[in-house]
């Protein structure tokens, strides 16, 4: 029987010269959230997809001959269809940011994990990119992926190539919408997570930042520019540009773009200040 000595043995492998640490952070973050029951949540977020998939099937299969289709006169599988789908998914997207994003940096700070991360070859951008990718993965799973599946389904069920010729750009629009949503909501929730004292307060702040400006926008709906204070309105306005549809709000999309860019830039600055391995108390 061999005798094993409990002693240190040097590792004989070779370290990757420039490890892609953001990828490791993202993969581990995704696995952690999957174990926390994210799968069940994703199933709920797919209900609208199933509903719309049935719509596509019924319309593609029976055209407007069916009585139920005639009832929804004007329902077309056009750019508005995809835009509406993404706008509807925004509710689940917000919940994902609350559920997955609020604790993302707050927990690392609570357990003083930042000094562990930054004592490895992990830089600020690696860390933030890793966290963003985790959010991006889950957001894409309920926006981009089902959106693309709906598009593919419509293309497959089409009798000719007219549909794909008319709407070949839809996948790009779905992608752009998802990226804008991720960058804006993602940077805000990560800043809140990095600045708040805990997960709960970050989640409450995020909800407030989503709901309160939206409420003001509704109350002061006669003043179109007020819509610029609402994150959801800005995203939907930009989405209308991506999908080439009528603008839902009175302000120009350029302003929406500038407001979002300013918010994201501010969030990055705040993240730079708050994501530090050591808290210096003066």
């Amino acid at each position: 029987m061999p005798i094993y000595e409990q002693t240190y043995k040097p590792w004989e492998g070779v370290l990757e010269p420039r490890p892609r640490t953001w990828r490791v952070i993202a993969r581990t973050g995704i696995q952690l959230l999957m174990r926390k029951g994210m799968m069940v949540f994703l199933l709920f977020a797919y209900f609208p997809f199933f509903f719309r998939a049935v719509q596509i099937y019924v319309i593609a299969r029976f055209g407007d001959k069916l009585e139920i289709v005639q009832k929804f006169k004007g329902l077309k599988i056009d750019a508005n269809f995809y835009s509406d789908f993404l706008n509807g998914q925004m509710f689940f997207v917000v919940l994902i940011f609350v559920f997955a994003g609020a604790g993302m940096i707050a927990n690392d700070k609570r357990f003083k994990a930042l000094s562990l991360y930054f004592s490895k070859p992990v830089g600020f951008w690696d860390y933030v990119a890793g966290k963003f990718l985790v959010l991006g993965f889950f957001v894409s799973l309920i926006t981009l992926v089902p959106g693309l599946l709906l598009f593919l389904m419509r293309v497959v069920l089409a009798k000719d190539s007219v549909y794909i010729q008319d709407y070949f750009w839809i996948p790009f629009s779905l992608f752009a919408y998802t990226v804008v949503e991720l960058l804006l909501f993602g940077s805000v929730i990560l800043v809140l997570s990095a600045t708040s004292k805990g997960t709960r307060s970050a989640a409450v702040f995020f909800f407030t930042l989503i709901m309160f400006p939206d409420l003001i926008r509704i109350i002061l709906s006669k003043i179109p520019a007020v819509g610029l204070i609402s994150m959801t309105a800005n995203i939907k306005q930009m989405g209308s540009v991506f999908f080439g549809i009528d603008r839902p709000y009175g302000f120009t999309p350029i302003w929406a773009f500038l407001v979002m860019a300013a918010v994201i830039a501010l969030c990055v600055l705040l993240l730079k200040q708050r994501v530090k391995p050591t808290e210096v108390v003066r």
Partner: protein
Amino acid sequence: MSVSLHKFTIAYGDVKAVKELTVQFPEGITGLLGVNGAGKSSLIKGLLGLVAIHSGEAKILGRNVHQEQKAIRQLVGYMPEDDCLIPGLSGIKMVQYAGELCGMPRQDAIQRAHEILFLTGLEEARYRKVEGYSAGMKQRIKLAQAIIHDPKLLFLDEPTSGMDPKGRQEMLDLIMNVTRKGNMSVILASHILMDVERTCDRVIMIHQGELLEEGNMEEFRGNYANAYSVRIEGDKDKFVKALEAGGCEVKPDGSHLLDVILPKGKGSDLVLKTAGKTGVQLRRLMPSVQTLEDVFVKRIGDK
């Protein structure tokens, strides 16, 4: 040299935690000794880029800390003082994660994480979440995550803090085992002198961010080896004055006891002669063993 510093300064606003420190850490185990707030942790954090460097130069394993921060962090291991954990992960996953962050291939990191947790005595608890670990287990997992990638240099910041005597002993044994077998240099920051005395080949003492003293453990003891514990009967003051006139350093220790440090090159016969001259009876004259603690307390006192 594993680390060399030149006028290395760390400042938090106006407060300088490390002041123009110029010192070299050779290979082997070096103890970084100082009281709480001396600047030990700040120095390590500065070298790893965890706090901003105010001024000065530093090289770790021949690499410049200003220019090659990430490359340095890949080659070194760091065991922080605080209870730093990655929440939500099991012990095995946390150590594997640390390895992958350092650039280890995934399969190697998994396999090595098991080996390292076995070595650190956490094999039974490896599938438990790290948040539920005891203080001693947290210290062990911190060491495990620091050594998984087989670093060339290991920074240990108060590695035995919060551990019971048995756990401390085991941790120090582990550190020595890792260093010996892994051909690894270690910088061990501690204020627990016994730990440093037990494990280190060399000591660097800092106080209020400045270098106090440095040398090999043997040199340290050697510098103070000419010390005697003396017990007398008679006129103590007269005897003390006579010894001091002869160049001795005398510290009364109770009513009849004295700690006497003889000047270099002099033997214990100086004490005998002085006793004879002053008419004092010598009841005891024995060499006193100087511990690191004696040296440390003396140097801090001098400061």
